[in-house]
């Protein structure tokens, strides 16, 4: 009797569970064996990428040409997403330079219009006089394309319809829409730090077009970019520990021709699993508050640790001026 009741109960449970299991299977990512992804777009050399930019008048034209070359790309399924997991950072050997190929002691590699070349020359001369103001001193985000250069922690979250490119600094996330949507209509665009990014997958390569950006600087002692700046990027995993991005910057008022650079981000070893991106509150410490001086330089607003304390001028410092 009890064996019969038990069998009936098991049958009921099994009957109830089957639709649930079916539902779960239907919602879960495709668990089938992933097919290796191959790209249609070739891996071009730096010179080829520079030449490619010259062949297209705008960033949008370049993006559309790449899309055509890639046969419009192909949406990825969950099981096909490339593994971009881990915590990354931009190698510091290039300092803050926007172009990692910028040689030590030389200026940025961009070919600028005369007006923006003159602005850059003045900026560099001012720094030699100790006068420099970084627009992010107000806790504003760096904004794209400067976003590419910051040397802090990064994470990259890939999903079929969106990719999130995360920079730890000021909790900065670029969202790349790969669900087939277009940009915001031109009449509704307004400048924003990271702009509006759409993209497509060409096998393991993510191709991105970004517009609707705010003006800014590429980095300290670098040129300005205007709010007409647009970029095209091709991101891919170069090896187990490296993500690279081919970047073309178009900005007609400032750039005499598109600026091509290749960015690289290295996966950090984290054997103790201690690396964690935390909330970045830029304004949490009064001792980091700075003001812009009358000459256009930077000065601390005042420290909380030296109230009333006289600095031991002269005696504390030794060295060549």
């Amino acid at each position, binding site marked *: 009797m009890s064996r019969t009741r038990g069998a009936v109960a098991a049958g009921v449970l099994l009957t109830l569970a089957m639709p649930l299991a079916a539902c779960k299977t239907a919602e879960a990512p495709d668990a089938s064996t992933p097919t290796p992804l191959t790209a249609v777009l070739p891996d071009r050399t730096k010179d080829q990428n520079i030449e490619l930019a010259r062949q297209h008048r705008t960033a949008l034209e370049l993006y559309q040409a790449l899309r055509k070359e890639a046969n419009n790309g192909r949406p990825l399924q969950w099981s096909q997403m490339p593994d971009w997991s881990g915590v990354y*950072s931009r*190698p*510091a050997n290039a*300092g*803050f330079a926007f172009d990692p190929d910028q040689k*030590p002691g030389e200026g940025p590699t961009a070919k600028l219009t005369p007006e923006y070349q003159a602005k850059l020359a003045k900026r560099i001369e001012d*720094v030699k006089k*100790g*006068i*420099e*103001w*970084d627009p*992010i*001193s107000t*806790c504003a985000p760096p904004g794209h394309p400067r976003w590419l250069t*910051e*040397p*802090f*922690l990064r994470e990259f979250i890939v999903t079929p319809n969106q990719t999130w490119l995360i920079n*730890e*600094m000021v909790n900065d996330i670029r969202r790349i829409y790969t669900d087939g949507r277009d940009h915001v209509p031109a009449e509704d665009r307004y400048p924003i730090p990271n702009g509006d990014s759409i993209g497509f997958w060409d096998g393991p390569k993510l191709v991105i077009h970004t517009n609707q950006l705010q003006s800014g600087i590429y980095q*300290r002692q670098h040129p300005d970019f205007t709010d007409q700046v647009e970029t095209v990027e091709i991101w891919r995993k170069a090896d187990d520990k490296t993500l690279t991005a081919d970047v073309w910057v178009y900005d007609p008022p400032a750039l005499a021709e598109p600026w091509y650079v290749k960015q690289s981000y*290295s996966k*950090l*070893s984290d054997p103790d699993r*201690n*690396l*964690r*991106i*935390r909330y*970045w*509150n*830029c304004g*949490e*410490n009064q*001792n*980091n508050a*700075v003001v812009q001086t009358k000459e256009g*330089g*930077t*000065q*601390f607003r005042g*420290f909380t*640790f*030296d109230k009333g*304390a*006289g*600095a*031991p*001028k*002269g*005696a*504390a*410092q*030794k*060295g*060549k*001026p």
Partner: protein
Amino acid sequence: MIRAFTTAVLALGALAVTAVPGLAHHSATMFDDKKTVTVEGVVKKFEYTNPHSWLWVDVTGKDGKVTTWGFEAEGPTTLQRSGIRPSDFKVGTKLTITGNPMKDGKPAAIWVDAVRADGKKFNPRAGFAIK
């Protein structure tokens, strides 16, 4: 106690400044990257904050007067990557610390390196290295 460094060490300090990113968030032109200052003291406070951390060090002068110096470094995760944790500099920890001082003579500097009384060395700029 405040000590002067030799020219050779100064040159080394300047090289370190140009070899890696110095500061994020704000310009570093308030500091003199061609000079270094080294002080011995005890930790008064460690502000482990973004975008910059500050290590406060009480330094007793020859006249017995205590001056609090602030040494600025990168934020928490960069410090963590260089092996510097909040517990490394508890209040009262004795240390010798070197930095690029403010040009205007205020008792503050960019933290270049530090040696605790137990001999352990700390270089906050090592946090930018890719490991």
